[in-house]
Every structure is written in C-alpha cells, then in structure tokens.
C-alpha cells in the first residue's frame, strides 16, 4: 500500500502542478480579456467559464469521458496526433482538471483585474511600456495576492477533486491514481488505517503549504494604504 500511496502522491503533485501551470497560462489572458470586454457576449462567456462548477464532478467526468473517447471527434483527433488515447492517460487527466478547475482560477483573476486602477496602466503607457510590458510590470505585481489565491485555489481544487479524475483517469496505480482516489479507495475498502494516514498527510501537507504560502504573502503589504 505505502508504495502505491507514494506513487499517488507524486502523481497528484505532478497533476496539480502541471494543471495549475496550464491554468495560469490560460487563465491570465482569458481573465484579462474578459475583464476588459465590453461586448454583449461577455456575460455569456462568463457563464460558460463558470459552468463546470455546477455539474457534479463525476457527471462532468462522464461527459468528458464521452468526449475523450476515441469514438468521438476530439478523442479521435488526439489519438490520430499522439497515437494514444486521451482518456485514461496523464494528459487526459490534466486536460480534464484544467477544464474543471478553470472557473476557480479565472473568476478571482477577473475580479482582481477589474479592481485594478486603470490610471496606473495609463501612467505606464506614457512611460513607454507596451501592453505586454504593462501586463507584466504593473498588472501582475498589482494583483499578486489574487493571483496567489487563484493559483492556490486551482492547485487545491485539483488535489481535492476526484470525481472527474476517477472517471477520466480510471484509477490506474502509477499512472492515473492520485492521492484523493487512493484515499477514496482506502475509505471504500474500510482500510481506515491507510485512510487516516493519507487524510492526515493531506491535511498536514495542505496546512503547511498553505500556511507557508500565506506567510509569504504577508510581505510588507502593497495594497493602497491610507495615506
């Protein structure tokens, strides 16, 4: 069991890490775009992004499974290109997690971007900063805390999520079995010693990680202060 737990831990961290990275890369421009959109389609787009939240994970997982299956177009395409199936692979897990955790990343980012003082961007523009430059030199540092929040929400959600992963991943040890599933298995099979161990570990790990994160986050505050 323990070896399997270690494997699951590693896969979990890999999955959460890769997913979070992709989420940030996707989520940042998406949230930025949404926050500065004025078109009528914006609410619809926002609703679309928020959608995965209202579906039960296993159900979402099921529909993703259908989509990823080699019988469907996306799954077919993936197989044609990579030679392997999308479902039951690490890539599939990542894709599903990204889809599922997207709202948890995009929404806080979008709100943060909306709260941003546009005047500072204008100032940066007059100082010669291109739009991309402004994004990196003004927007990102200004929204550092919400960014951290978005990333940690994405990460935690990917770690804790399991309905989708179970469905898409197939719970294959060493490949797609993540910690949450191992934990689920342990509870299901009445192996409470393992369950308590994994749950305790997860909680401890999360506590340490999150505390560290939030402590780091408490650097001299950069929010607009009363002057």
């Amino acid at each position, binding site marked *: 069991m323990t070896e399997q737990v270690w494997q699951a831990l590693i896969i979990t961290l890999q999955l959460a890490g890769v997913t979070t990275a992709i989420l940030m890369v996707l989520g940042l421009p998406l949230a930025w775009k949404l926050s500065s959109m004025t078109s009528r389609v914006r609410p619809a787009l926002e609703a679309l992004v928020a959608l995965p939240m209202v579906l039960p994970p296993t159900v979402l997982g099921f529909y993703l*499974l259908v989509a990823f299956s080699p019988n469907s177009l996306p799954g077919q395409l993936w197989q044609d290109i990579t030679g392997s199936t999308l*479902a039951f692979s690490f890539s599939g897990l990542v894709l599903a997690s990204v889809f599922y955790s997207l709202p948890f990343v995009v929404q806080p980012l979008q709100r943060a971007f909306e709260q941003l003082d546009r005047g500072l961007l204008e100032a940066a523009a007059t100082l010669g900063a291109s739009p991309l430059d402004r994004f990196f030199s003004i927007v990102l540092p200004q929204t550092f805390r919400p960014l951290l929040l978005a990333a940690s929400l994405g990460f935690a959600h990917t770690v804790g999520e399991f309905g989708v992963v179970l*469905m898409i991943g*197939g719970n*294959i*040890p060493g490949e797609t079995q993540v910690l949450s599933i191992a934990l689920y298995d342990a*509870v*299901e*099979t*009445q192996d409470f010693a393992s369950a308590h161990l994994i749950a305790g570990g997860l909680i401890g790990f999360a506590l340490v990680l999150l505390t560290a994160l939030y402590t780091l986050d408490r650097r001299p505050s950069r929010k607009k202060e009363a002057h």
Partner: protein
Amino acid sequence: QTVSADVLRVAVASNFRPVVQELADSFSRQTGHRVTLSSASSGVLYNQIVHGAPFDVFLSADSERPAMLEKEGKLVGKPQTYAYGRLVFWQPLNAKPDYQTITEWRGRIAIANPETAPYGLAAKQVLEHFHLWGDSRIQLLQGANIQQAWQFVATGNVRAGFVALAQLRADKIDSGYLLLRDELYTPIRQDAAVIAGSKNQPLAEQFVRFLLDNAQQAFIQDAGYYPVRDVQPTRDAQPVVEPNAGSESKIESTYTQVYKG
C-alpha cells in the same frame, strides 16, 4: 506500452477490492506478472470500459454490466460468475437480531441504492418480502453503494442497515447481525470478464481461471461470499458464529446446489 506486456490491469468493483487484493498478490507470486487494481463502482467501470479504458479484466459487482458489455461486443468470451454476494441485516448494538427485529423495525435503516447497487436491490427485495417497502414507519437511508450503507451504520449515525457479509468479515465482526435467508433476494451474482481491447488476453483469461480455482474460491468464501464451485470445506464450511445457524445452514445447502447447476 512495453511495460504493459507483463502488467495485468484489473478493474474491480470497489466492494470486492479488499478480497481481490490478496488474490492478485498470490497470482503475481505464481506467474511473475504484476497486477494493478483499479477500483470504482461497477457503473463507473462500465462507462470507462465502453469508452476505451485500458483494462484487461473486469470484476463487476453484478452480472448486468458484464452482460451489457458482452452485448456491445466489448468482451472476449462470456462473462463468468466468480462469487455471490451475501446480504446481512446489521444492528451493531443488538447481539442477536432476528427476522422479528426486521419486521418490527421502526425508523431509519441504511441500505445501498437499489437502483445502482446490487446489494441495494437485494435489500429492497428483503423489505418487500416483509411488506416493509414503502412503509412510512421505516425511513430508508440510501448510500450510493453498499460501502456507504455500511459507513452509515459503522459511524453510529444509523442503528441498523442491510450490508454485505463481506464487509463485516473484513472488520472481523462476528455478532450483531442476521445473515439473511438466500431465498429472500435474487442471488447477487458477480461476474468477471475479459475486455476485448486487452493486450494481455491470455494472461487475463488466466487470471479469471485463477479466480475460479478451488483455493481462491475458498478464500472468497472465507471473505463472506458464496463460491461458484464446490470447494473443499475450509474452516468456514460451517461459519464459526452464525446467530441462527440452524435455519441458515439448511437453506444454504439447498441453494448451493442450485448454484452448482
């Protein structure tokens, strides 16, 4: 793909996983091939197999899903029954519950969801038999699967429930339950099948045959199931503790014959 040659991927219904865990270990020792277990509910596993999950063997907790898979051409050969589940009425705080306990029961009772779980269906049949199904004096608490029904009772939130004998055996519980007569519910047939897409078909078939060996069947029986073949009487031929051993053993003998046929 190179590794998969000697790794057998077994998809197993969650409630059978603890049993198959040990069997798989001995299979590995015998054959030198690694076995990985992927567990989920039978329904989830079915959906995954339909959509191309890379499993070699499917150990379902029912016989319907394997049959459906066969109809859809997802199997090699026919499904084979590897065990029968046994339902108990569990009331931890009562040393010797009996049928009267059930018929006079008021209040909450935990069962698995009859729509999704075979044990749930069995429990429903038992209740129907005693005309308790739909009785407003009984409040049914449905777990999504038999495991949850067990958890409801085990955590003390519900005083009694219909659970699997195997669950009690796994926890070495030997009192406080009533082993239900077999004729009260349709046999809970658990079927195994070899998946059509398997890259290790011979090994998969070997594994299914292995499960049906006497030694393994005896182990399965020990774990709280009916075996599918005549097995050498082991220490559990007469259960060590049966609250109402008399009537039970009689019924058991008749039914085992039916199964053998």
